[in-house]
């Protein structure tokens, strides 16, 4: 009996810790959302409800351009890094591939070094080669840091792969291309979608590597937000942030939905 009580005490303690961490994780975000509706120019107490900072967002051309830039970069880098990820994961499936070690090193090492170093090294590369920094250089940087993630996510999906279906199709005389598109690709699809979503969020989220590789005049949303915070005009940042959080939640929900739909169709 004594044991049970102590167990319960521990579980209670863990529950307390869990609740505290939840409060810790969500309080700042909640406050941010609430204050995006606050009718005040600076952070002070509550001054009444307003939507005007949301309307200001849609009138601000700089924000609109930063948003467009973010989406173009995220879309393109997601697409390219996912395609590269699929190809690489398929190539690495062969356990006797002679370039396996080299490739693994190139994929895993970027993940275990601080990302500021990738920013610095790319900044110097673009300086050394005298390339004009801007959209093109940011795109290259984003693809570079997304590849590792897409390869790993797609690879982990391939590892749990059931080959009996492929073997059965081969026994029945199906051609390799047919096997790939009809069997292998659909089974890989959840992994590919997960990889693409991860790449997309990483790209939207990135500040530091973009900061080092974008020139003046090419802002993504995080770069714009940081600059605005530093200059001190923050009213629209609240509403912008709230919309971005909403977008994140939307992504989380559709990922779950997508996964469910995909699993049910396969």
């Amino acid at each position, binding site marked *: 009996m004594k044991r049970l009580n102590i167990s319960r005490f521990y579980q209670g303690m*863990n529950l307390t810790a869990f609740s505290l961490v939840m409060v*810790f994780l969500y309080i700042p*975000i909640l406050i*941010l959302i609430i204050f995006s509706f606050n009718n005040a120019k600076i952070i002070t107490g509550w001054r009444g409800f307003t939507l005007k900072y949301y309307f200001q967002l849609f009138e601000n051309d700089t924000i609109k351009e930063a948003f467009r830039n973010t989406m173009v970069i995220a879309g393109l880098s997601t697409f390219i890094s996912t395609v*590269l990820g699929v190809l690489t994961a398929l190539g690495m499936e062969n356990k006797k591939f002679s370039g396996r070690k080299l*490739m693994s090193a190139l994929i895993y090492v970027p993940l*275990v070094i601080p990302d500021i170093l990738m920013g610095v*090294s790319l900044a*110097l590369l673009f300086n050394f080669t005298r390339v004009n920094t801007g959209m093109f250089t940011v795109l290259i940087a984003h693809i570079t840091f997304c590849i590792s993630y897409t390869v790993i996510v797609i690879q982990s999906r391939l590892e749990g792969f059931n080959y009996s279906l492929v073997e059965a199709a081969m026994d029945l005389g199906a051609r390799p291309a047919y096997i790939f598109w009809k069997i292998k690709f659909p089974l890989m699809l959840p992994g590919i979608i997960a990889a693409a979503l991860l790449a997309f969020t990483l790209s939207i989220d990135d500040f530091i590597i973009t900061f080092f590789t974008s020139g003046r005049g090419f802002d993504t949303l995080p770069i714009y937000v940081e600059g605005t915070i530093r200059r001190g005009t923050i009213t629209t940042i609240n509403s912008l942030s709230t919309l971005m959080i909403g977008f994140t939640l939307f992504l989380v929900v559709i990922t779950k939905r997508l996964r469910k739909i995909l699993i049910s169709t396969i």
Partner: protein
Amino acid sequence: MRNGNYNQTLNAGAQKTQSRRNLMSWLLTAPALIWLILFFLVPYFIVVIYSFLTPDIYDVQFEFSLEAYRQALNLQYLSTFFQSFRLAALTTLLCILLGFPVAYYIARAKDKVKNTLLVFIIIPFWTNLIIRIFSWRIFLSYNGVLNDLLMRSGLINQPLEIMRTDLAVLLVMVYVYLPYMILPLYSVLEKLDFTLLHAAMDLGANEIKAFFRITLPLAAEGIFAGSLLVFIPALGAYLIPQLVGNQRSLYLGQVITYKIKNIPRNWPMASALSLTLLVFVAILLVALFALYKRSKKLRRV
């Protein structure tokens, strides 16, 4: 294993298939391989080259110099390194202490609730970093929400100056990196066989003994993975110290960024500092993996 079986049974034809498959693998991996060599590997060589050059206000002069390394060993930069190291270590420690009970709680929750609880951990993780940092500024600033609440409740008479202190930096670092600790811890604790704990306690071990003898060693792998995910990025943190810290005590990420972005620029210095950080991380990783392998071997014996 699959390949192994094939090779044992097949004859001369197998060799041919094998080399054809190998070629196929090279072709499939070639785009990513070339990309990573060009944009991941080559840039580091340029960093090495730049670290031996002479700085210029806007650019570099292609003249050999060891000045950057000489300066990097100055007391000023050594203290910057120490400052960043301390921040990363404290962040990791606090993340373990806070993350462990949370991961444990989720791991022992009912299967139905588990996924929901995990989503709650993951949502902040998916939210834009800069927004999360910004929300702390609103919360902690001089006339921010926390001070407002504390003043109104009469606990303090004057607003606390938390923003722009090292404490604020640590707080936000823990906030940002906590999910990176919880998730690997969870995945280890979830696989943990709780019957072992019950067995130990039936044999007379108390909770505390059982925790240190069974739970903790079995969770070591998760603590190890989580610590890497927290400690290493924390060493190079720029955005958090920049937005909630002060300009009196600079962290490594800030110093490197200033040397690259601010005029007068000093790219050789930034390169030398970056390489020092890189070497430090490499040594750390090699040492940790050696330690990890040894402890695994010991456990098996």
